[in-house]
């Protein structure tokens, strides 16, 4: 019974991921999302709540659109979790735990509930507040936004979806004719 429920939820989630950016009122409760995530991948560092939160924040930063999948489809949260789990120093782990707690606190301050309980519009509004100091971050949430964006971007653009679907990179394969413009026939100065 339990298993089937999770299966269904996962399928819904996957379907939702493909259209999340355009479907307006998609609210996935934290327990369900967490359970689904846990069934898919066991977190190595994050709690299930943190996992769901990072997954959602990453998807807000790099959402799926009609061109390609987003951070969720690219499993950015798995990569961040794996990276933190084996971090040698306590610093990045502490920074992430503190940063995620601050995201929830900020959500409560500004919108009256934990981040994952908010509507997509309110979630985006909270991230917009976090991002407002991007050029010169001073607050905990401002600094955490830059960290979040940097890691999300790194793991997204080194993923299969990021490289092949999103940027449509054509290199790293044999090119009989080298790509580009031949200037050897131009003559010299």
């Amino acid at each position, binding site marked *: 019974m339990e298993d089937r429920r999770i299966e269904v939820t996962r399928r819904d989630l996957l379907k939702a991921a493909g259209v999340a950016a355009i479907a307006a009122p998609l609210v996935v409760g934290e327990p369900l999302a967490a359970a689904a995530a846990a069934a898919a991948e066991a977190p190595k560092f994050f709690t299930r709540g943190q996992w769901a939160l990072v997954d959602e924040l990453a998807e807000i930063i790099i959402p799926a659109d009609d*061109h390609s999948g987003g951070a969720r489809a690219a499993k950015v949260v798995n990569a961040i979790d794996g990276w933190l789990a084996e971090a040698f120093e306590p610093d990045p782990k502490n920074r992430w735990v503190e940063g995620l707690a601050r995201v929830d606190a900020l959500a409560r301050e500004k919108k009256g509930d934990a981040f994952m309980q908010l509507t997509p519009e309110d979630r985006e509004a909270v991230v917009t507040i976090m991002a407002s100091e991007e050029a010169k971050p001073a607050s905990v949430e401002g600094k955490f936004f830059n960290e979040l964006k940097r890691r999300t971007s790194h793991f997204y653009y080194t993923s299969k979806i990021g490289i092949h679907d999103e940027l449509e990179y054509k290199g790293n394969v044999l090119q009989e004719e080298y790509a*580009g413009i031949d*200037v050897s026939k131009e003559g010299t100065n």
Partner: protein
Amino acid sequence: MAAWELTSRGLNVLLVEAGKKVNTTEVLHSMEWPYDHPRRGQMSPKFHALSRNEYNIRNPPYAQDSQYEKVFSYVQGWGGSDYSKTLVVDEKDHPYSGTKYAWVRARALGGKTNIWGRLALRLSDYDFKGKSHDGYGEDWPISYADVAPYYDRVDLLLGISGVKENLPQLPDGKFQRPYKLTPSEVQFRHALQKMGRTATPYRAGVTTDGVTNKYRSKCFGRGACSRHVGGCDIHAAFDSPTGLIYPAQDTGRLSIRTNATVHEVTVDPATGKARGVGFIDTVTGKSYEARAKAVVLAASTLESARLLLLSKSRQHPNGIGNSSGRPGGFYVPRFRNLTEKQPDFIRGYGFEGEGGFGIGPGEGADAPGFGKAWKKHVRDYAGAYISMGGFGEVLPRYENSVSIDPLIKDRWGIPVLKFDYQFGDNERKMAADMAQQAQEMFEAAGIEVVSVGKNLLTEGWSIHELGTARMGDDPRTSVLNQFQQSHDVNNLLVVDGSSHVNASCQNPTWTIMALAMRSCEHLADQMKKGDL
């Protein structure tokens, strides 16, 4: 190169290598996609790469008291560090002291040629005869005409790609088919042409049409050079193992002893000549001596200097070869101080740069914002970025030197090198001009300048250490003669960058190869005639 040239002339050679033999084909995995590696190509977090800041805030030894299992130089902070970690040295085992210096070392058969940047440039008489041109320093005892035939032979033997530009300051070579430019690079090239300057496709020590060598493939044009700290596992880029050492081994006249750290050039007490080398087996710690009729050092400029200084004997109390007392210290070709004269500095600089698509979005991902609009912006601008970095000549100065630190020893008990080396006023003024000219050139090409870095990198950063045992005709002011032979001990040669009289702004690898070939040809002739 020494092993190849000498064995091809019928001599028997023992190659003593401090590191191990690394099968780079198995190690580099340069075709692996980032997502197929558990850490996207990064090495374990138990290992640490020194950051620019660490070099700036303290002096070496940089890895002292580090909590990390291994500590590497800054190059391991680049992408793909997990693939190159077996080639470069652990700073904990290999400390050095003195002034700030970013010293990158590889200990493996072939050394840094396994991971070099591939820019293969010739020097010109602006470099060989720098003193005649501007009065500073010393002229080399040789001119471009002496080296040109050897540059040609190196080009044909190892393969080089490029476009002929007919520039007096950057002589053309025997080029194979060139790399092509991206649209932004072509736009830049055309703008520079109007200024009387050049942006030429990267002159790479890479074979694009193939060479007669069963260990090497021609370049696939994958655009993957910038990955993995530069290693090339199809060996289209030159590396000494596949380019020279394995072919030398195939003559049957080359023996290789790896894991053997040489700590001195031994001397025949009767004649004062070099007798061989003393080395320590890095695995067992046992000491050995290998004897030979001639000793050729090519341990990299600074390691060779260390070795010469460590080789003290009754005949050579200051270290071997050291009686002069002075061992010590798209390409945009140089356009400064050729026909005009800069008021603030002498010599010149060139730029290495690139524009266009890489495997990631590059600087595009630094755009502010998030969400769908940001994602589209990154996608739209992914191939639009172009950047370049300046490489200037650091003047040779007697006050810049290296010596042996008697107090600090490496893992095998060998005293380490101590730096006393700093950039001077000429470098700082030249760097300011570099930044200004880079900005002006980009703007002239209609390129929006996003950022300009004006700070000099830490000394050593370019990995072009040169001139600790300079060549010259006068034994009182130089260590080696024009055939890189010690003035004091004629059966001792140093064929890495040690002999360079001044650095030039052109990358040194191809000149090191050409001079080593020339010197070893001369050595083989002398040995055949019994002149040694």
